[in-house]
């Protein structure tokens, strides 16, 4: 049994964990749920030995674990964790990454081949695919990296496997297989702890659920006795009325001229078509969704609309150029593509050319004015930064970083917003607020292209819905607006 007793942890003046008692039994899948800032990740980090508790203790099968031991001796402690943002050696191949994990292999080609064989076996048991041989991690999709992390965690043959929001980047088809894999791990007598904000998932897969709120455990109950509504109420209280959304206006098409048009846009690399004759029009006032399994051309589509890559054939109107700001892009990987972590928030705000243009006088940047604007933006969007606009972006938590990226895109007052995984790392209430902002933007005449793997989000927000599979874009009919049918299309059934 994995057990914590009265764990306390502070960050500065914030009490992140307040006398937390947590218990997970062998042969059970235990879901840990809670809002942003509830303390879930902090607890996982303490269990995994990445953080020290200020007080309290961690016991595994009755034996006390010295602080930090799980991180120093992963084999002995047998607690493995998969984190929300993949922690892999980006510039190495995935086999090398796994060799550095529990397989403890050398770097010779033969040893790496052996690693690959073992990894494929483990991945096959868990039910998912691995990248092609010797692929560099940096070139893999986000979902592929999450899968790699899980395989690496399993390579330690852990007693306890902790997964921090592991499914947020998995496709529906993969999700089922993955949840089945978790059940298999449970059958093997392991302790599986899954951190999630998706209530349905917690209810579907977990045996027991622990609910956290503001650093405290507010409830621990068997999943069989819980309902989604009850859990949501425990997590956040009831969802505020103003955040409840009417369903989107069906598939009707506004009459205005499109704000963004793609005509047979094609992008090829090494003879493979990453984008294959994509045609799409987004009109003012419209939220258009693109569903798809990660790695089917979404990243390329976003890069194309940001003006980073050039088309091989076809046309995009307006011509993508981030320096002009008709289109604001919210990239999927905000730390890599959306923020300069070492720079301050107000400087990050000025990365967007249209915002920057407002704070230039006689060729010089007016730092003070930009800072006060940034402060008002942080305030308006509820972004918590201890040092205000002068805080470095790195000092923000992931959820706050995401809110900042959204706030900046809206502040740029573009005609079109292209958002890839709009609510990555946000919990229910925060996601609802972001959706609200995006809807307001559309209602005021903005055009939105929402690219996501989260079907619930797309079905809730989007008027027209497309599916992207192997670089091809298919428009869905009203009859397709159903997760199962969309899942089939995403797997390429319609292509």
């Amino acid at each position: 049994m994995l057990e914590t007793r009265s764990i306390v942890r502070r960050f500065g003046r914030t009490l992140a964990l307040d006398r937390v008692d947590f218990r997970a039994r062998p042969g059970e899948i235990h879901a840990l749920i809670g809002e942003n800032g509830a303390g879930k990740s902090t607890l996982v980090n303490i269990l995994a030995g990445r953080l020290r508790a200020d007080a309290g203790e961690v016991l595994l099968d009755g034996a006390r674990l010295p602080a930090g031991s799980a991180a120093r001796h992963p084999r002995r402690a047998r607690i493995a964790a998969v984190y929300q943002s993949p922690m892999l050696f980006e510039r190495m191949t995935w086999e090398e990454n796994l060799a550095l994990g529990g397989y403890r292999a050398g770097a010779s080609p033969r040893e790496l081949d052996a690693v690959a064989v073992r990894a494929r076996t483990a991945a096959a048991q868990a039910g998912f695919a691995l990248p092609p041989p010797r692929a560099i991690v940096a070139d893999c999709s986000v979902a592929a990296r999450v899968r790699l992390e899980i395989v690496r965690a399993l390579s330690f043959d852990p007693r306890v496997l902790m997964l921090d929001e592991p499914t947020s980047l998995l496709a529906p088809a993969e999700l089922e297989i993955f949840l089945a894999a978790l059940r298999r791990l449970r059958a093997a007598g392991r302790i599986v702890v899954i951190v999630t904000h998706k209530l349905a998932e917690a209810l579907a897969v977990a045996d027991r659920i622990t609910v956290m709120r503001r650093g405290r455990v507010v409830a621990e109950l068997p999943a069989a006795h819980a309902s989604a509504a009850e859990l949501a109420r425990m997590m956040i209280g009831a969802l505020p009325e103003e955040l409840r959304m009417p369903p989107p206006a069906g598939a009707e098409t506004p009459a205005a001229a499109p704000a963004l048009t793609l005509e047979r846009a094609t992008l090829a690399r090494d003879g493979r078509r990453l984008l294959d004759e994509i045609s799409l029009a987004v009109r003012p006032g419209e939220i258009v969704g693109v569903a798809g399994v990660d790695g089917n051309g979404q990243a390329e589509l976003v890069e194309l609309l940001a003006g980073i890559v050039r088309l091989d054939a076809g046309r995009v109107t307006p011509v993508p150029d981030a320096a002009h700001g008709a289109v604001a892009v919210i990239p999927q990987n905000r730390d890599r593509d959306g923020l300069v972590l070492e720079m301050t928030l107000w400087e990050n705000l000025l990365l967007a050319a249209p915002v920057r243009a407002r704070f230039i006088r006689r060729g010089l940047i007016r730092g003070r004015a930009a800072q006060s604007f940034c402060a008002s933006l942080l305030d308006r969007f509820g972004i918590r930064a201890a040092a205000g606009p002068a805080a470095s972006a790195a000092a923000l938590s992931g959820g706050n970083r995401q809110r900042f990226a959204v706030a900046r895109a809206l502040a740029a007052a573009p005609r079109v917003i292209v958002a890839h995984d709009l609510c990555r790392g946000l919990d229910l209430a925060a996601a609802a607020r972001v959706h609200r902002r995006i809807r307001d933007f559309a209602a005021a005449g903005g055009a939105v292209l929402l690219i996501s793997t989260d079907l619930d989000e797309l079905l809730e927000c989007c008027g027209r819905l497309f599916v992207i599979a192997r670089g091809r874009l298919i428009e869905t009919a009203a009859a397709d607006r159903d997760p199962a049918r969309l899942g089939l299309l995403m797997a390429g059934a319609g292509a």
Partner: protein
Amino acid sequence: MNALIRAARRPAAASVIALGAVALALAALGASPLAVAADLAAGACGNWIAFTDTLARATPLVFCGLAVAIAFHGALWNIGADGQLVVGALAAGALGPALSGWPHAPAIVAMLAAGAIGGALWGGLAGWLRARRNVNEVISTIMLNFIAAQLLSWAVHGPLMAPAGGFPASRKIAAAARLHLYFPPSRLNLAMAFAVVLACACQLGLFRTVAGFQLRALGRNRRASAFFGAPIARLTVGAMALSGALAGLGGAVQISAITHRLYETISPGWGYEAIAVALIARLSPLGVVPAALLFGALDNGSQAMQRADGISPELVYVVQALAILVLLACDAAAGGGWREMFYRGAPASAEEGDDA
């Protein structure tokens, strides 16, 4: 003002710790650290000549330090300030003798322009290779250093060699092209003041202009810069050309004020020492000035120290290197910002809050 003091605290502390460590080593070897320090200080600024000599020695370090700081802000690791300084000196030294009969001010401007253009071409070449052909600028600038040195050697042995001499040096530059020395034999001249003005301009350019902002963003996150439409190729070539121009100016003022002609050994390695200067200054253009003065003083004092105490001047390099190591170590402990630029492989994930 407070911000200034805060910015200077760590580098100053690092220098003191480095000096202290060397003092301990000297004491252990049986020498008196105090006597050595006194001789070092006397050699650096004990009298008028020593003091002005320190200024003169620090001047090229300011130019090259600025060159390095600007490029490093864009994560362009310009190791080639030395070569850029040499090419700038070569251009100015080649032009200088032809300026006889010119009025003083235009001749000086022509000398500076020649130096800046020469250096800009040399630095811009590395920038172009980086932007268009993706050639690592560390390698290209080091290679260009060798080419510049050989170019200078060939020039002073060949086409530019003074007719009567047999010594590998060029003809003297025209009198009009020489920067005024105020109190000969001291080498006090306007170049240091010019360097300080440039430092202020660089500070303004980096932190207040759009191009400077974009360059700093580029250096810290290339992909995000691309996502927000920064003109990456233009910034790369421009920053490297500017960097080269600054180093080239350093070469030109050296010819104009101090040597008045080209020698094979025009640079004792300023371009390399400038990397240390820029690091101690933590890439702050204004910080480059005091850092260069410190290094110039140590260089200058080291010779007096050798004469008086028989201690090899290399001891001073030990102090300089130690100061940088101490500073890097301090910054590591504090998780300081620019340091992360040197370890860009790992994305910074200093997530403090909880975000599930």
